[in-house]
């Protein structure tokens, strides 16, 4: 198969950080890969999926991160070199098995990739998953380049097998989505050998007596892994002087570029920490000896700063340690400019010019915004419109994670609260106990991820909630990855489709209806009926994601909508449906034929719209 990720030893390719992780895993001989897609990690599994016909490994999209973690851990227990990939919040979902598998250890080896998102480019929080390295007891690698994504991915997998301890490769958005040159190493002729499973309940069944002993085993293993960190090629010190910098993760790139702009690193000692847990305390202590002042560069929480303070205190080292000093803070991302400023302060130099963070020009005032929006032809818009027609502000809307979170935007305004994947059903259930009626929206992939347990609970505890499952047949937000609800033809031979309605009924829901997403009449009727009912009601709204239908199912419509009458009805439709294909200027209202997908929802909302086929409007 012709894919640059399979190119031979010595090839040099420009790769995304995420693509480089894939190459590293292939070089290590990975046997099993599981995941739940989530930005900024999604290109890793996307590429494993594309390369799956190479038959080098077994790959699967899992229903959620906990399942992905458990499948990968099971595979690693049975002797396979395993890899599991998720975004940072996914590791919360997977934390339960994680915090015990570090006790048992996994003979085949397991690497966990967590893609963090400082700055919340596409996430609901900016949690720092280096905390999990400390919490669970995971050797942690933090790449700062595409080359390191490859090299550390490989090294972390091989260390996982050698030590039998699960390891963590922690990337951030900037690293996952940078492109840089990567020099390839050799691909093994065959994947890693399977380590035969040796039954040992005294190790692998953590009843309390076993768990207590395994906790001690974990501590001992981490101490020997600390020795690995002391000699790791990813941990390097250089330079001389009384002022020092310790940097980890993407901050190492910012440090390099800031020093480049300042004309070099004379008079500075620099420690680059690539394998960042367990801390190589001896090397770090040696580094700090003789330093008067030390700058710690780490995005997110001051974890390294605190550990170094403790170490310096323990050894009575008279070094002043600076970490989160302005403009460096725990919020958002660092930058070359911010690091440059911190370096100038460290050197005791006044900033030569104005602040390096200052732009040469201020932002232009009041430019019209371009927020993300539901696409033209998105069936979610149709469902939200109908819900708002029937319920208005008389209910609270529980939203969930997916494109449909964008329903929060006016005029649809169908998102009042949200925590995490699957929370619409369970948080909605709890809310409705005290807060009045709730309509919950959840997508198909999110329903399979963690909506099903909330639904079972809602039936069990006789909650009062209307659940709308927006089934667009794909995992749209992250780039159309498969999920258990996808049609069988698209899934192919390797997977079996699950029918959402059967699952819902199987959970004991008595009131279930299915409608097409573009059918306003049916949507309005079902919503009206269900508004008058109580208990758990489920409406399944089916319509393929319009982007997915066009790109992958190769479906398109030859008809388009147009505004046939320039009247109040058309104006009201423009205001309340707010399709991005609509336009309005001083002369007229209309539908942009380049953007219109022919869903014809507007025709059902207002009699002033009409269909046309090709030709002039």
């Amino acid at each position, binding site marked *: 198969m012709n894919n640059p990720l399979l190119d031979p030893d010595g090839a040099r390719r420009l790769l995304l950080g995420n693509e480089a992780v894939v190459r590293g895993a292939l070089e290590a001989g990975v046997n099993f890969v599981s995941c739940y897609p989530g930005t900024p990690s999604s290109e890793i599994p996307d590429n494993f999926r594309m390369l799956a016909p190479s038959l080098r490994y077994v790959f699967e999209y899992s229903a959620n991160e906990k399942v992905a973690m458990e499948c990968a851990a099971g595979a690693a227990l049975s002797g396979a070199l395993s890899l599991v990939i998720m975004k940072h919040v996914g590791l919360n979902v997977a934390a339960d098995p994680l915090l015990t598998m570090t006790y048992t250890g996994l003979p085949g080896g397991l690497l966990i990739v967590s893609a963090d998102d400082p700055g919340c480019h596409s996430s609901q929080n900016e949690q720092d998953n280096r905390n999990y390295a400390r919490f669970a007891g995971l050797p942690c690698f933090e790449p*700062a380049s595409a080359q390191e994504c490859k090299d550390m991915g490989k090294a972390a997998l091989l260390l996982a097998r050698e030590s039998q301890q699960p390891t963590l490769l922690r990337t951030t958005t900037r690293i996952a989505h940078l492109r840089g040159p990567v020099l390839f190493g050799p691909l093994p002729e065959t994947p890693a050998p399977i380590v035969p499973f040796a039954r040992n309940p005294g190790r692998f069944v953590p009843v309390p007596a076993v768990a207590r002993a395994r906790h001690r085993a974990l501590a001992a293993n981490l101490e020997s892994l600390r020795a690995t960190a002391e000699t790791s090629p990813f941990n390097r010190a250089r330079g001389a002087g009384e002022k020092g910098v310790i940097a980890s993760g993407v901050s190492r790139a910012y440090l390099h570029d800031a020093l480049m702009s300042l004309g070099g690193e004379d008079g500075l000692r620099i420690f680059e920490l690539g394998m960042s847990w367990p801390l190589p305390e001896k090397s770090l202590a040696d580094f700090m000896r003789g330093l008067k002042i030390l700058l710690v560069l780490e995005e997110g929480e001051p974890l390294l700063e605190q550990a170094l303070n403790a170490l310096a205190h323990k050894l009575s080292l008279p070094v002043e340690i600076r970490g989160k000093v302005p403009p460096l803070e725990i919020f958002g991302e660092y*930058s070359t400019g911010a690091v440059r400023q911190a370096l100038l302060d460290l050197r005791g130099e006044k900033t030569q010019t104005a602040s*390096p963070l200052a*732009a040469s020009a201020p932002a*232009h005032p009041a430019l019209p915004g371009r927020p*993300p929006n539901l696409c033209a032809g998105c069936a979610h818009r149709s469902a939200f419109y109908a819900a708002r027609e029937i319920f208005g502000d008389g209910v609270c809307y529980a939203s969930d994670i997916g494109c449909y979170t964008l329903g929060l935007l006016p005029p649809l305004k169908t998102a009042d609260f949200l925590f995490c994947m699957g929370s619409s059903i369970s948080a909605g259930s709890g809310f409705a106990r005290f807060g009045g009626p709730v309509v919950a929206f959840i997508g198909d992939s999110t329903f399979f991820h963690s909506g099903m347990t909330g639904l079972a609970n809602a039936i069990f505890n006789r909650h009062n909630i209307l659940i709308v499952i927006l089934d667009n047949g794909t995992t749209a937000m992250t*780039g159309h990855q498969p999920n258990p609800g996808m049609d069988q033809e698209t899934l192919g031979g390797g997977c079996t489709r699950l029918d959402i309605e059967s699952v819902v009924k199987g959970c004991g829901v008595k009131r279930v209806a299915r409608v097409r997403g573009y059918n306003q009449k049916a949507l309005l009727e079902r919503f009206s009926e269900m508004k008058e009912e109580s208990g758990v009601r489920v409406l399944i709204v089916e319509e393929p994601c319009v982007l997915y239908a066009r790109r992958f199912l190769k479906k398109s419509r030859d008809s388009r909508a147009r505004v046939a009458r320039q009247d109040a009805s058309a104006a009201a439709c423009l205001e309340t449906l707010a399709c*991005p294909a609509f336009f309005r200027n001083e002369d007229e209202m209309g539908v942009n034929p380049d953007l219109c997908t022919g869903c014809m929802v507007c025709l059902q909302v207002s009699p002033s719209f009409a269909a046309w086929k090709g030709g002039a409007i």
Partner: protein
Amino acid sequence: MSAALRIFLTGVGGQGSLTATALLARTVMDQGLEVVSGEIHGMAQRGGVVESTVLLGGFRSPAIGRGEADVLLGFEALESLRALPYLAPGAFVLSSSEFIPPPGVSMGRDKAPELEDIKKGLGAVAAKVWFLPINALGRKAGAVQSANSVLLGALCATGVLPFGPEALRASVKKYLPAKSVEANLRALELGEEAIRAAAEKSAERPPKTH
């Protein structure tokens, strides 16, 4: 080490600016030059702003901060102006002169700045500003999807890159799908021609290649 050059690219989801970014970065690498490139596209597929970067000359961070961009490649006129704070003093700006109206403007609630205002705003900071009708030229090249190559061809013709248009032509042939090569080669040429014509018009030679 070649001269440092930080290129900031901005456009709207669906325009294909990330494909253009990857093509440019691969071209730089194929020239044996140091390169790092980045992209931020959280929810961009849903019509939001897409920002990306290509940095030559030994940078390791893919990010470009405020006041740091030596070149701005704008795939949409309004987004070019929005990127103004990223420009370093004396930067080069190459931008589409065409608009993709954001929802507020389409609906008549907001008003987009006039092209003249955009030119003036960017011109106040940049040493040189070019505006090209990239979609019109893309259509002329045979496919509106090749509009991005118009901008890349124009970039090469300005001489700010340490290589000429031949390198980009080689990349189009090497990295783009066979069916779109012809239109993109033509689009590169149209971009180059547009810059040459503009340079002649202002009776000014294009800046020298590095």
